[in-house]
């Protein structure tokens, strides 16, 4: 009986279990069917959607920055090039604790406080997943050391890229300008997509003016990336169009000669080809090393440059506004002749000072005891002030203003450099508008000797001198001679001339003769630069930096160096067929004839005689 129950139970239980096992199987199959349904939904129904998402994950469009155009001088010397350089970069998002990372890195390679400071400055401007340089221009050894330790530093990488390099450093800094990181203001003005792969932009000089041509067109590539954003392979690419190369009129040798000739002095030299307006030399001394700016200058180095009393960042050649002093005398003389105010040989007596009728004030001549009887030739050769006080009074400010405007005074020359200043050619209107005062007759006199409100840049003086050399043909100065397209064809820049209306050949000749005698006459203020190799026409000038009181005397020896007069000289040569016009300003150099003229002579020699000098 017991056995019977046991077997009965056994059967019952076995049957019960079988039922449950079948139910379980059914549930398993149903759930698996649900899962299969889910898979069908994902893999068939939504396949397109997910395929797109997967593609978006995988493929990124990366910009290919174009190679920036090179800059050459007239002889094909490279002035700005792109050199490969290694930099240590950190992606803050992936690096974790930056302070710890930098501290650890500084045990491997040299990292200075300036580097860290610059890194943090850049970091604030950029996104957390951007790669930010910590050290630039790593040596091969440093690259190797980082490579060995790389595994310790997530988010730290050595990047190779092309860095702009200026082999002549400070010697061409003002003229070429430099490239540096794109600022936020600049971002608003540029075509962001074209600059998507570029981190640098021209900040000054040629680099800025010709930014568009130098930069080129960005290329694109489709790359496959992994989840960390690392590029694994290139799927498709469209090459960038490299920037245009620029060929300058600049003669690097002349540029170096001019800088060397300036010696200890600060100053500027501008030399232009009188035929083309091509800028042969454009020196502003002191300069600075533009390479420092390329990877971001450290704030301490920048402070040194910015706070220096010598103002190395200041481009004196196009932004320095100096009183032209006696260098304006040939122009004002020509104005007198052209406007019929004076005859070339007509003489004035110079007692060493000049007084306006009915006034006490004495306008001094630089020669205390006077020049005696002075005609225009002597007034230019010996630089007599009294003659010009009288001539200026006769001409009046209005006529002087309009005549000198024709030579480009008071106007931007239109050179292909950004930031040129226009100087100041004073007029009644200008004074009324800016000083809210009427024009006083005494002010006319000192404009006649290039002082007072009258200001001119070295470049303006060179352009005016070239215009004089060309007998009125005023040519717009230009730095770039031709633009070389990526395909190798050259496109010359255009020559722009504005003719001066007045043009009596006799008057040009008279002024030119006087300027030749400034160099060749025994009493000429620049007689020391006379040469047998070619003939020079020139004019010295001295610009007062501070005003000597009425009864005091200016004594070069006792005046502090930075208050000493600026020495100026303008010249063109050869006189018969002028090829070059030059303007020299030597800050605190004293007399133009003694200091500025020899510098001009060296520049002229270099151009006209070449290395044979």
């Amino acid at each position, binding site marked *: 009986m017991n056995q019977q129950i046991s077997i009965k139970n056994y059967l019952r239980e076995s049957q019960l279990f079988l039922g449950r096992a079948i139910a379980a199987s059914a549930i398993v199959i149903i759930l698996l069917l649900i899962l299969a349904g889910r*898979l069908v939904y994902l893999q068939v129904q939504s396949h397109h959607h997910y395929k797109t998402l997967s593609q978006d994950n995988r493929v990124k469009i990366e910009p290919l920055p174009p190679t920036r155009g090179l800059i050459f001088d007239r002889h094909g010397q490279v002035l700005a090039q792109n050199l490969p350089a290694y930099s240590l970069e950190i992606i803050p998002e992936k690096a974790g604790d930056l302070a710890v990372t930098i501290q650890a890195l500084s045990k491997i390679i040299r990292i200075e406080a300036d580097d860290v400071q610059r890194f943090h400055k850049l970091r604030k401007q950029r996104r957390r997943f951007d790669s930010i340089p910590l050290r630039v221009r790593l040596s091969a050894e440093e690259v190797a050391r980082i490579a060995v330790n790389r595994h310790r530093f997530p988010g730290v990488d050595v990047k190779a890229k092309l860095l702009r390099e200026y082999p002549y450093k400070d010697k061409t800094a003002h003229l070429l300008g430099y490239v540096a990181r794109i600022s936020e203001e600049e971002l608003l003005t540029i075509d962001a997509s074209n600059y998507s792969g570029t981190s640098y932009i021209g900040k000054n000089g040629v680099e800025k003016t010709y930014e568009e041509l130098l930069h080129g067109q960005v290329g694109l590539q489709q790359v496959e990336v992994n989840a960390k954003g690392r590029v694994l392979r290139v799927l498709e690419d469209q090459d960038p169009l490299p920037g245009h190369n620029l060929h300058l009129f600049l003669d690097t040798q002349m540029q170096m000669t001019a800088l060397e000739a300036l010696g200890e002095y600060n100053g500027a030299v501008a030399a232009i080809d009188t035929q083309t307006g091509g800028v042969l030399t454009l020196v502003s001394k002191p300069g600075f090393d533009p390479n420092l700016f390329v990877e971001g200058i450290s704030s301490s180095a920048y402070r040194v440059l910015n706070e220096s009393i010598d103002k190395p960042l200041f481009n004196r050649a196009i932004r320095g506004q100096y009183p032209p002093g006696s260098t304006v005398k040939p122009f004002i003389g020509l104005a007198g002749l052209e406007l019929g105010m004076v005859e070339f040989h007509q003489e004035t007596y110079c007692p060493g000072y000049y007084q306006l009728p009915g006034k006490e004030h004495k306008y001094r001549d630089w020669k205390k005891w006077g020049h005696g009887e002075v005609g225009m030739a002597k007034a230019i050769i010996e630089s007599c002030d009294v003659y010009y006080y009288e001539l200026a009074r006769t001409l009046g400010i209005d006529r002087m203003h309009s005549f000198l405007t024709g030579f480009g005074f008071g106007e931007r020359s239109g050179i292909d450099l950004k930031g040129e200043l226009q100087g100041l050619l004073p007029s009644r209107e200008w004074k009324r508008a800016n000083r809210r005062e009427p024009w006083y007759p005494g002010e006319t006199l000192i404009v006649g000797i290039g002082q007072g409100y009258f200001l001119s840049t070295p470049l303006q003086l060179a352009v005016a001198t070239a215009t004089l050399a060309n007998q009125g043909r005023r040519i717009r100065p230009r730095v770039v001679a031709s633009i070389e397209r990526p395909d190798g064809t050259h496109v010359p820049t255009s020559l722009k001339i504005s003719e001066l209306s007045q043009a009596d050949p006799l008057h040009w000749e008279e002024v030119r003769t006087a300027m030749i005698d400034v160099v060749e006459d025994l009493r000429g203020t620049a007689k020391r630069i006379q040469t047998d190799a070619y003939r020079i026409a020139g004019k010295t000038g001295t610009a007062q930096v501070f005003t000597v009181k009425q009864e005091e005397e200016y004594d070069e020896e006792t005046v502090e160096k930075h208050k000493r007069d600026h020495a100026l000289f303008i010249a063109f040569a050869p006189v018969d067929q002028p090829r070059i016009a030059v303007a020299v300003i030597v800050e605190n150099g004293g007399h133009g004839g003694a200091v500025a003229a020899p510098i001009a002579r060296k520049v002229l020699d270099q151009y006209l005689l070449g290395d044979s000098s």
Partner: protein
Amino acid sequence: MNQIPRSGLAFQESQPARATGLLASLHLDLPLLTGLLLLAGVGLLILYSAGDQNMELIQRQSVRLGLAFCAMAVLAQIHPDNLRRWSPWLFLIGLAMLVAVILVGETGKGAQRWLDLGFFRFQPSEMLKLALPMVIAWYLAEKRLPPKNSRLLVAGMITVVPVLLIAKQPDLGTALLVASAGIFALFLAGISWRLIAMLGVLMAALGPAVWYLMRDYQRQRVLTFLNPENDPLGAGYHIIQSKIAIGSGGVNGKGWLNGTQSHLEFLPERHTDFIFAVISEEFGLVGVLALLGLYLFIILRGLFIASQAQDTYSRLLSGSLTLVFFVYLFVNTGMVTGLLPVVGVPLPLISYGGTSLVTILAGFGILMSIHTHRKLLPT
């Protein structure tokens, strides 16, 4: 469900297969062994791709598989009667170790799961995956089925205690698997459908309470499951990338070693918990359905073995172990396909890792033992 069988059909079909002489003497079941080996082989193939063709990974996994198959073979030799006798003791030892883990356990990944026994680290919760269904089967088999309510209550208690201990570690995945082992044993023992329905209602009502007890990261998982797009770079990232991998695989897949989601590292945990997404991406719908077919074969074979078992203990244990294997599969694939919240359960026999591998194959060893130690019954 209390139908009386009308024939002895089940017995007649249950004659041991004598054709497989060698395997039979080794107490191994050929269909099950074939299915498992096939799965392990496929697993290595996929791991080779998911692990970025890292041979070291394959070697280590092969060694683990070898050990796990050995464990299976060893367990297959042990007679079910012995297993039944050891069941309560095994369970008590497991329980003691769970308590020990809470007191002196090793911490890893924010959870206390390990017990350091000096020569090797041991995860007692794994042991419970076997010990719990064993003890429930042992307890229920003592009296006739279906069990009375009082016995059900005791069985429920036996289940809940270790589950809570494991959940406290916290290890939600294992707690879920252990709990399901107990629940399946009860289900197979024939608790009434009405009770099951009532328990279901009770569970739903307890939902808010469970929510309250959950840790932040667990709540986060549930929230992320409900709306992964809410947090695409944080907690939702796993599931979004997993769905992209599966969906972009399409019908035919991207091909072995060609999955972009996995090889470009968009898919996290791709050689462990999310390996199913790699399979789906590279082999497409056709491939995963074939794989699911293989799993289904193993599960049905397991249930068949259970139905052929000759005593209640063997039936409940083998059925429960088989269904736990299914829970592994469904929780993992459900998570990877976005049907279920993210719970750390590996894809059985395929995911990289050794602990669950040994447990699972040991479980199949028990099944084989049950199937191969049957006696011919008097009819």
